[in-house]
């Protein structure tokens, strides 16, 4: 078989592609559900209900969507410039670490500064930490041609060990009965809840605002043009006068900062202290979300709510009828692959021989 480029994409194909992708995803997951011996309709019903079916379910989904949104944006801006930042997980953790370092109750107190000032400092520190973590790989890519996929991916493991070191050492919470857990964040620095009696916090608004900001940046600013130009064709961008190195470094700072903020917002909005299992792979899932959203910042908002809904819904469905929660990972992964294939098929046609 062979792929042949289509001369033009019909509007019908553009409409059918996402529908086909959803149907294919459902088909693949259905086979697994049937294999697990569960009734199909009920399983999907419970999943939908658990993710979106009540105020509580929706609040849990939105809570889960917040870090995904931020890591999704981090991946989006980096991938736009063809900087393949696989290190959002590590950047998220150093962001969280920096947040605790600035705003934590070290020795039972904290820094003696007004909470508003401290809050700003905390967020800046988290963003800076994430940005600096990605700066090294970006410079190595721009200057020496070192593959950033390898460096950013491996940095994740180094950061996890660093966090582990801090949680068992300088930042260890003495009241945690020996658990490797950081000191708590100062109460005044925690994000307010959006809906009483739920866990949704104002980090959601922050995520949406950043998505809109990133969309405007990419669409309306010179830097946005530089980013898209470098991503689309670095040689041509350079010929047109775009400094590729400068752009890659700025994108790295931006992407790392977004992932670092994800960590700080997670600490300030949900956990209020740092543990080694704070993120179940938000950094990696962010990549999936960016791809699902076709690297569109506003699409990232929708994609992160979708993915979070599937994850949360699968948890509750699993408790009810015993299909393992891993079905959620299958659904997310299958939907990513189907969307990518569907997009490909709108641009190419398959020739069988």
């Amino acid at each position, binding site marked *: 078989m062979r792929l042949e480029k289509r*001369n033009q994409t019909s509007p019908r194909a553009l409409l059918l592609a996402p529908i086909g992708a959803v149907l294919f995803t459902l088909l693949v997951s259905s086979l697994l559900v049937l294999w697990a011996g569960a009734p199909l309709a009920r399983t999907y019903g419970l999943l939908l209900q658990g993710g979106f079916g009540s105020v509580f379910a929706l609040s849990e989904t939105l809570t889960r969507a917040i870090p995904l949104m931020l890591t999704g944006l981090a991946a989006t801006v980096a991938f736009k410039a063809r900087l393949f930042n696989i290190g959002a997980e590590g950047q998220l953790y150093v962001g969280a670490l920096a947040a605790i370092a600035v705003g934590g109750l070290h020795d039972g107190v904290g820094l003696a500064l007004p909470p508003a000032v401290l809050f700003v400092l905390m967020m800046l520190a988290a963003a800076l930490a994430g940005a600096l973590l990605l700066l090294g790989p970006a410079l190595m890519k721009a200057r020496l041609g070192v593959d950033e996929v390898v460096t950013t991916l491996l940095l994740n493991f180094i950061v996890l060990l660093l966090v582990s070191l801090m949680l068992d050492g300088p930042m260890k919470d003495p009241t945690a009965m020996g658990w490797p857990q950081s000191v708590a964040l100062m109460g005044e620095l925690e994000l307010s809840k959006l809906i009483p009696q739920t866990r949704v916090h104002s980090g959601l608004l922050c995520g949406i605002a950043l998505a809109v900001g990133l969309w405007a940046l990419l669409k309306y600013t010179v830097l946005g*043009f530089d980013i898209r130009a470098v991503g*689309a064709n670095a040689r*041509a961008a350079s010929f047109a*006068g775009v400094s590729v190195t400068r752009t890659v470094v700025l994108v790295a700072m931006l992407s790392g900062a977004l992932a670092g903020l994800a960590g700080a917002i997670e600490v300030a909005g949900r956990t209020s202290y740092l543990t080694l299992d704070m993120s179940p792979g938000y950094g990696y899932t962010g990549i999936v979300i960016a791809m699902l959203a076709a690297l569109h910042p506003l699409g990232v908002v929708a994609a992160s709510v979708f993915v979070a809904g599937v994850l949360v819904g699968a948890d509750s469905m699993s408790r009810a009828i015993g299909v393992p929660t891993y079905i959620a990972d299958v659904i997310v992964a299958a939907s990513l692959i189907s969307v990518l294939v569907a997009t490909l098929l709108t641009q190419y046609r398959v020739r069988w021989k």
Partner: protein
Amino acid sequence: MSAVVLELKSISKRFGTLLANDDISLNLHRGEVLALLGENGAGKSTLVSILFGHYTADAGEIEVFGQRLAAGDPKAALAAGIGMVHQHFTLADNLSALDNVMMGSEPLSQPFTRRRAARTRLDEVARRFGLGVDPAALVGKLSVGERQRVEILKALYRGACILILDEPTAVLTPAESEALFEVLAQMVAQGLSIIFISHKLGEVLRVSDRIAVLRSGKLVAQASARETTQAQLALWMVGHAIDAPSRHPAGTIGEPVCVLQQVSAGSGRERLQEVSLSLQAGEIVAIAGVSGNGQGTLAELLSGMRVPASGRIEFLGQTLPAEPGQLVALGVARIPEDRHQIGVIGDLPIWENAASERLHSPHFSRWGWVRRSAAQAYAQRVLAAFDVRGGGAATAARSLSGGNMQKLILGRALTHPSTSAVTAAVIARSEATRQSMSASKDMDRHAPLAMTKGGLAMTNAVHAMTGTAPRLIVAHQPTWGLDIGAVAYVQAQLIAARDAGAAVLLISDDLDEVLTLGDRVAVIHGGHLTPALPALEWTRESIGLAMAGGEVTA
């Protein structure tokens, strides 16, 4: 007449709304060179791709030696004895010539390659057709002509008796082309048949027995090479007469605009060594040479993409900045060699591409925000003034044809954003002229060129008044791969810009272009540049000699 070895029967192929091949029937005889002549987009490549199995025809069939050829299967084409030599070589630089020839022709099931047998066979094939290449030499170290010989050997080694050569002379010096033609003569003398694809009329007449002319997917004419002329072929190929830009000498030569003093830069094949050159206002200096002899480095130096390793480049009395944005702001117009890969960013819309060179300037941005309406209006002006067709300002640049893409690149290089109001009026007038001319059907084809001359003169007058005309134009292979109409358009623009007082550096490996446009001509070989002498002091022979590295005696 000898036996028919290949027969194409009513081949048709459609891409969307484009009929790339329309009911084409052709024969190829044993021991014959058939030239396939046509402009870009005439359907030559599609036809050959169908023949070689890269595409499947929508209708029609192919017979090789009387046997029907399976459609869409390159392996079947190879097995039937069809060999293809692509314009862009498909060789591995880090392997020897022998390895390259053997690669892919050895079965995977055997544990060891049979190098000795292969070597013997290769030597035999090489001797038979007079294709001398050292089998042990690394391909990366071979000259372009030698690499082409390896490509041909590769096809012959696999038993090809029908050889397709896709624009084989595009990368060769005149002398290397002659050597190739001798090899072809030897091959047909031994009974091979050759399909020779080209759009160069002279060499088609020189090398082939029979010529088939394609235009817009149709086979418009077939003729024996002995019984036709260049003028007749050109008429068939284009469908109407073309006025070539008239060569007229430069007017008053002005001050030196750009001076290179003992400039060295780059490395490897593209290394430039102690090059000195002075470009003066109001003249075109053409650089001839086989591509890959340092032209790329020279163009990069003057496009702000590279700094000299030693020596100095002076532009209007200052050192030339090595930053594209500053260069453009100072009045350097740049036309890069590879319009698809470097000239435009295909995924981005035309308006962003039009404004891209000056996007960082106050014309198109303020406080880091793009002035979208200014940039879009500018793009509209460029599209209208340079007659770019095939998409509006919001269309992705990649959907433009090569000719229109080049007009866009030329347009943005020559149009200064600040001439907005006045130029718009001029353009509106020339546009009106064009449309009134288009009203008459047979005038239509000539209109763009006529419009160019009239409209451009006005635009130039405006530029001259406002001091925004480009001071230096660096054009690297500006007409490469364009059809005759677009070539004439681009060349007319360069001449008009020269007449308006720009210094033009034209780097081209097309000798005809160099001799038509150049007021002074220099030849580059191995990174060395000959002195730039008046065009009339050169002959084709002396240029050819200098291109091959001989001494300049002119």
